[in-house]
């Protein structure tokens, strides 16, 4: 990348402060919402179905089932409004984009958890 462009990015865009996560992971996104002049935090919990883009405009999509209706939300990864991302579960998936989740519901849409070695 051009050093000047990098300088601009580093000056105005915040570095990635979030833990690493990928498609299939179950995460909770704490999103800052401004109402009037008050600020509150809204949580959105669901499965990551894709990571999209690179650099400052990278986004990720989180899908959840709310009252029986599938809801997807796209967040910019480097947005200052994304306050915190917590990884609840690391999923075992074989694809980068889990669009097949849109056709599934109930038990079929479960993503199995990846078994990981636990540091003693």
């Amino acid at each position, binding site marked *: 990348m051009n050093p*000047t462009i990098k300088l*601009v990015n580093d000056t105005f*865009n915040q570095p990635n402060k979030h833990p690493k996560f990928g498609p299939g992971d179950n995460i909770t996104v704490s999103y800052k919402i*401004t109402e009037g002049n008050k600020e509150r935090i809204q949580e959105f919990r669901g499965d990551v179905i894709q990571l999209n883009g690179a650099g*400052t405009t990278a986004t990720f999509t989180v899908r959840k089932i709310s009252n029986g209706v599938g809801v997807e939300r796209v967040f910019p990864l*480097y*947005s200052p409004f994304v306050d915190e991302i917590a990884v609840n579960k690391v999923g075992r998936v074989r694809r980068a984009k889990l669009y097949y989740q849109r056709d599934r519901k109930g038990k079929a849409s479960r993503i199995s958890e990846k078994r990981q070695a636990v540091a003693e």
Partner: protein
Amino acid sequence: MKGIIGKKVGMTSIFADGKYVGVTVIDVKGNTVTQVKTNDTDGYSAVQVGFDDKSEKAANNAEKGHAKKVNTAPKRKFVEFRNFDFEKAVGETIAADIFADGEKVTVVGTSKGKGFQGVVKRHGFSGVGMGSHGQHDRMRAPGSLGASSDPSRVWKGLRMAGRMGGNRIKTQNVKVVKVMADQSLILLGGSVPGAIGSYVVLEKTK
């Protein structure tokens, strides 16, 4: 009128006022006043600004002499700004902070050359799906060029295929998103005519 010469560095996007904004980064380092024209001496008032140093070796004697008068390196690009807003003496630099965040500017650049292009790309013809109006079986041909025995010729200025791009393009009302005075950078909202590394002239929008 106030203005500055810059070089296109490239594009990126930043968060400004809670929104992602695509910005073009313009490097304006080294703008030097090389000549001041006044009503008495030249019949009009203007400031000549030089930008982008070139080596002594690359400059001819005329260019060297012009630069020597102002005690600066020879420059590659010169632009005259009429009725400059600020009082500037010869040899003074013009910095990025003549513009403020949120100001509107006019940007002049040379568009990217596209080579020999057909009428669909060059003039926005829609192309014809059916095989009439001189279109035959081609989708992107210009079609009929006009009437027949009257006028018995093709009108001057009829839009046809040809060289496209590489023209001087002026874009008005471009927003100055951020001015990085310390680094001599100006971030303009959206895109700006020209290739990366090409010169652009920023003027205050009237």
